[in-house]
């Protein structure tokens, strides 16, 4: 569980917010503070005042699985195999186990025979799939995903969602502009000018946002 109290950081002000286990979507217009909030949740920023606690402690970078919205910013190494292996090597996992887990992970997205490929030859979408696998490979309890879905086609998105669902992560927080994805989450947090405008179950939040352009089309279809 994530608990935010009296948070202030740059333009972001959140007096109180609880994010329970399950999947939470963070939505809002461009510049509303979504990425800033996600970076605080991942421990990449420290609050200027107030607190962010994940399971009662300050989030620590490296323990939370994190995917950046800029595909290139996820890349540390030149080769796909090294990129996937890095989080395991940083934890001093034995080499034989690293090799095994890297091969297993790569196979899930059809990269089994592309481990020696260099990262700079991948497409933007392939970059974020590798970044997602790198985030998942250590089986983190908490996953923070910053709008990686905007780089993926429909089928790749289904694949990514299946990987996330099967990862065992207890808490998943994802920023998205895809309202169909948000509608499938357990909870939605709407940011507006650095503050929480709405929070709640998708039914509650989208009833507040109707008839705006972000109301999910599939929900109109089921009426």
């Amino acid at each position, binding site marked *: 569980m994530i608990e935010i109290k009296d948070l202030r950081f740059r333009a972001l002000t959140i007096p109180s917010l609880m994010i329970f286990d399950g999947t939470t979507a963070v939505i*809002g217009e461009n510049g509303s503070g979504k990425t800033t909030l996600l970076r605080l949740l991942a421990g990449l920023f420290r609050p200027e005042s107030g607190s962010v606690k994940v399971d009662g402690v300050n989030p620590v970078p490296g323990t939370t699985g994190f995917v950046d919205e*800029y595909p290139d910013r996820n890349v540390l190494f030149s080769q796909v195999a090294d990129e996937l292996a890095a989080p395991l090597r940083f934890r001093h996992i034995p080499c034989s186990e690293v090799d095994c887990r890297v091969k297993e992970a790569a196979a899930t997205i059809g990269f089994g025979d592309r481990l020696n490929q260099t990262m700079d030859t991948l*497409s933007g979408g*392939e970059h974020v799939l590798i970044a997602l696998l790198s985030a998942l490979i250590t089986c983190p309890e908490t996953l923070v995903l910053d709008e990686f879905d905007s780089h993926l086609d429909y089928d790749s998105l289904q694949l990514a969602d299946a990987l996330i669902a099967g990862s065992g992560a207890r808490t998943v927080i994802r920023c998205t*502009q895809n309202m169909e994805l948000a509608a499938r989450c357990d909870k939605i947090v709407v940011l507006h000018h650095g503050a929480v405008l709405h929070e709640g179950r998708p039914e509650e939040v989208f009833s507040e946002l109707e008839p705006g352009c*972000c109301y999910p089309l599939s929900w109109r*279809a089921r009426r």
Partner: protein
Amino acid sequence: MRLSLSAVEWHSGSWKFDADGVFTPGIHLISGRVGSGKTTLALLSSRLLRPDAGRVEYDGIGSRTLSFQHPEYHVTGSTLGEEAGSYGVDPSAACVRAGLAGREGEDPFRLSRGELKRFQLACILMRTWDLIILDEPFSALDCQGKLAICQSIQENRSSIVLVITHEQHILPRTDYLWEMRSGRLFGLGSLPGALSLWESAPGSVRMLREQGITPANLTRDDLMEAVCMMHG
């Protein structure tokens, strides 16, 4: 005016790109799985990449522009004002159009990714071009931003506009649909007929197809109209 790709080939290791196609004025929507060659098509069509075989020919095309998938690749100025100046557009007007009025003095890298994308697209679409290639123009934009870009794209219908996208819900009125499949370009035809052939169709179109409904086109209004047909 037309852009022609004639027996174009490009190779990267064992991966091969090949394309034959003619693009005339109007809006051409191009989709495909990740890694299928969409960005390669954008680079070849804009002549930033030279084909290994075949020809990319411009007939009557005097001006062209390419919007990169990643807006950060475009940044050359230290302020939004300088950045707008590099496109040859009025800084104040560009900021207003991008919803960033009065922020000409800000560092582009202090913007959110969505704000930067809006600004970069505003700068490009404030000028008139014969050939406009937009690689993932909707990525990172909120729904209002996507609708605004759709409007701008539709205002450029007299140009040749290539829109390469994974966008699932908010799309411009499209004249011709193309698809990249494992490195090969396929022309699917005009709408609505082409929609039934679209393998990488967005979720909204798949949902309607499953109900036996074909939207007239891909705009939000078209999709809403089709949803209404589901309810008789």
